[in-house]
């Protein structure tokens, strides 16, 4: 294994995935907001709502296309850069990806064409149905992707098969109803809804500040503030839910996020701020709130939350057990029918992934020294300071959004969005959802290290047998391509926003009276 290829492959995956996820959240949320806006149009039959729907639909389209284009990379990259991963867990991981294509992506991609081109060819209700199917498709798409990702975090329903040297499905129902996947799904789509609501609020505030398209802007803001308030509550409350399930499956990630080095007496305190120190295994200047972590993590006053040091000890013993399983697998490779080896394997197979951690230091884990085992056990600690801060920024932004949308909701009824300070705030809030969302993914994926599949396959073993120049070539290629597309997309988005809903505002709407810009207030 060439460590440089592995690190570069990780870099490329992180870049392409984070880039892809700049477009996905807006698609997730805006598609449902289009459904709401178009429903109002279908119910009230007022042309202004048709103008509103088509205007946001146009911005949706500019964003959607890049989500689709960059999603293709994700689908191929597991095979390109993570071939051993693809072989090792393809039996489980491939299924949700394929089902995503079949059940969700086909639906959204087929319907999105009709959504744009079918305004004059379909009836009102028919077109609304199409818009709804686009929203349903995008959200189902997220469900299957998060079932796949949830399995990497909490690999249920699968066992190692020594005949095929890979993980295979033992219970597909467990994969499907994985609690981590469910919590992640709700958290992720809610974040997408917050993102879209913030986007609609920000763009509308820009119009109101300039006194342009005020009838479109004010109505859009009404929809966005209600939608955003519900979504921001959901994203924080159900973010907590994914912290809760962590304690069963990913205790190490939780301990790292909290920089909780030692197991504390229940109920544990939460560290609001501090400076985690990896060398000394302690957190300096910690500001703690008693009881809270225990409550969040275990939903009780008596449940204990494991600290990093105890979890390392557990990893140590699982590595030793894994080496026994590894030895049995080597015997089974020589003779499939070795009954004794199979019995030993069955007893220790759940730890075989831990033996693979040793491959970083020794090609045959059975030859590992005590020191190497201890090093491998210490490797199970992810990057504590990075997780600690990323998580706090993400969560802080999450709480900020609740306050912001509560203010928006209040402003909608109390002042009809006529306060300039609020409108300015709305434009400043625009980039925040993206920051929180990208940080959230970093917490989820950095927190899973050193594993690509928790307890099953270390990241460094998953890579393809590529060369450094090959991976550099594609990193440079993707960066150049994605970079220029980002510039073009942002410019087009800004140009379309500046232009406003012109081409879809027919004369009868413009002459309806209230559609003309209101005087400045």
């Amino acid at each position, binding site marked *: 294994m060439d460590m440089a290829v592995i690190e570069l492959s990780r870099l490329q995956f992180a870049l392409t995935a984070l880039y892809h996820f700049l477009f996905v959240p807006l698609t997730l949320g805006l598609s449902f907001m289009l459904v709401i806006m178009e429903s109002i149009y279908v119910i009230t039959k007022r042309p202004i709502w048709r103008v509103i729907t088509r205007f946001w639909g146009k911005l949706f389209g500019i964003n959607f*296309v890049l989500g*689709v284009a960059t999603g293709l990379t994700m689908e191929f990259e597991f095979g390109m850069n993570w071939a051993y991963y693809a072989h090792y867990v393809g039996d489980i991981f*491939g*299924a949700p*990806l394929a*089902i995503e294509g*079949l059940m969700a992506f086909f639906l959204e991609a087929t319907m999105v064409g009709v959504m*744009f081109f079918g305004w004059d060819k379909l009836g009102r209700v028919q077109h609304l149905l199409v818009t709804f199917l686009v929203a349903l498709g995008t959200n189902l798409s997220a469900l299957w992707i998060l079932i796949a990702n949830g399995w990497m975090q909490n690999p249920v329903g699968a066992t190692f098969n020594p005949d*095929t040297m890979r993980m295979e499905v033992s219970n597909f129902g467990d994969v499907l109803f994985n609690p981590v996947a469910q919590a992640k799904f709700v958290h992720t789509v809610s974040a997408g809804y917050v993102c879209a609501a913030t986007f609609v609020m920000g763009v509308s505030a820009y119009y109101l500040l300039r006194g342009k398209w005020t009838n479109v802007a004010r109505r859009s803001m009404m929809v966005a503030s209600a939608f955003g308030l519900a979504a921001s509550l959901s994203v924080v409350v159900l973010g907590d839910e994914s912290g809760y399930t962590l304690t069963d499956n990913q205790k190490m990630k939780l301990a790292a996020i909290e920089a909780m080095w030692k197991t504390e007496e229940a109920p544990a305190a939460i560290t609001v701020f501090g400076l985690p120190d990896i060398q000394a295994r302690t957190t300096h200047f910690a500001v703690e709130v008693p009881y809270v972590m225990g409550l969040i993590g275990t939903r009780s006053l008596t449940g204990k939350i494991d600290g990093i040091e105890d979890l390392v000890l557990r990893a140590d013993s699982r590595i030793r057990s894994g080496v026994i399983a590894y030895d049995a697998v080597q015997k089974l490779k020589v003779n499939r029918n070795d009954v004794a080896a199979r019995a030993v394997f069955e007893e220790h197979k759940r730890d075989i992934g831990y033996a693979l951690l040793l491959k970083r230091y020794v090609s045959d884990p059975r030859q590992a020294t005590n020191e190497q085992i201890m090093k491998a056990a210490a490797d199970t600690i992810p990057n504590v300071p990075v997780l600690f801060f990323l998580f706090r920024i993400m969560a802080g932004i999450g709480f900020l959004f609740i306050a912001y949308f509560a203010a928006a909701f209040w402003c909608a009824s109390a002042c009809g969005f006529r306060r300039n300070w609020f409108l300015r705030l709305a434009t400043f809030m625009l980039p925040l959802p993206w920051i929180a969302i990208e940080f959230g993914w970093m917490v989820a994926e950095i927190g899973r290290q050193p594993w690509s599949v928790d307890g099953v396959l270390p990241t460094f073993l998953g890579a393809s047998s590529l060369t450094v120049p090959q991976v550099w070539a594609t990193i440079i290629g993707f960066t150049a391509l994605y970079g220029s597309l980002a510039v073009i997309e942002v410019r087009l988005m800004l140009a379309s926003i500046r232009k406003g809903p012109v081409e879809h505002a027919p004369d009868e709407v413009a002459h309806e009276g209230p559609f003309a810009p209101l005087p400045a207030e």
Partner: protein
Amino acid sequence: MHMPLDYETLRLIWWVLLGVLLIGFALTDGYDLGVAALLPFVGRTDEERRLAINAVAPHWEGHQVWLILGGGAIFAAWPFVYAISFSGFYLAIFLVLASLILRPVAFKYRSKHTDAAWRNRWDWALFVGGLVPALVFGVAVGNAIEGAPFRLDSDLRMTYEGSLLGLFTPFTLVAGLLSVAMLALHGAGFLAVKIEEGPVLARARGIARVAALASIVLFILGGVMVAKGHMGMRLTGVVDTSGPSNPLMSASVSAPGAWLDNYGAHPWMWIAPVLGIAGSLMALAGISGRRGWLNFAGTSIATTGIISTVGLSMFPYILPSTIDPRSSLTVWNASSSHVTLFIMLVVTIIFLPIVLGYTAWVIKALSGRLTIKDVRTSPDFY
């Protein structure tokens, strides 16, 4: 878990489904790629080009899912094939990805500005986005037929000993050009049923005539190279068609000319190459008689026949290895587990008909020949 279908049958079904997906992709997105590659030649003015673009614009997004689904289905049903081909053909796959990323953006963004230089640049992006995937897919299939230089170790970790340039041999270039000719023909065939009579359609017919002849010639040439070249492989020893998916448990020997064995054993298989040629002839008849539907049906039949020929010739091989025959991937040693194949089959049986159903509804909802007048008046057109 009790499964009503045995492992061998499921593997066979998934081999057929792999073909169905590839053909589904070629028949649908294939014409989008073809039209994009033809764009600079069939459209001289901006309006003419927009006519061609908007003929495929409402559908390409849905069609591209055949490719995404193809990737996902190979991952789920044939994880070895997914892992080895995508990492082995690494830079070639990247070229395909880069051009396929350009394509949607070009569709969507091209007509957002009236600036001629802007539009011209995106037209070239569309051309690249159509031509390069068509070429590289063909070259990749050519490499699968020739075999790829990879080996598996006892952990089933793959090492690949080839390079990007190594993918281009005389035979794989013939395969690549055949793929371009076939999809250009299919793209022109689609225009024949989708746009009004006029200069764009006339030019498309002219190109289609050349493409049809080229695809017949290249297909026969490829066949001769397969028969006379050093390609082909045979399984040796006892073949356990329901055994564990572990290539190292089976044995193969290199056997030049073996890709024709199946036609001797099962003469009905000749129907595939015959359709590959007959379809192109039918398209030629449709072009001469100005019968659009005959033309399009012909190109669809040709595409189906040509792709089926590849699969049937190689069966049961999917990806043979040139440097270590033992590592070769076959229908019997490279699939996912019995359970996964069964679950995926159930999902496919439920959802594929639904997909086909709403795709048909969408085609119907947006049916009708496009005219230059539509391009001038509709605010939604690209």
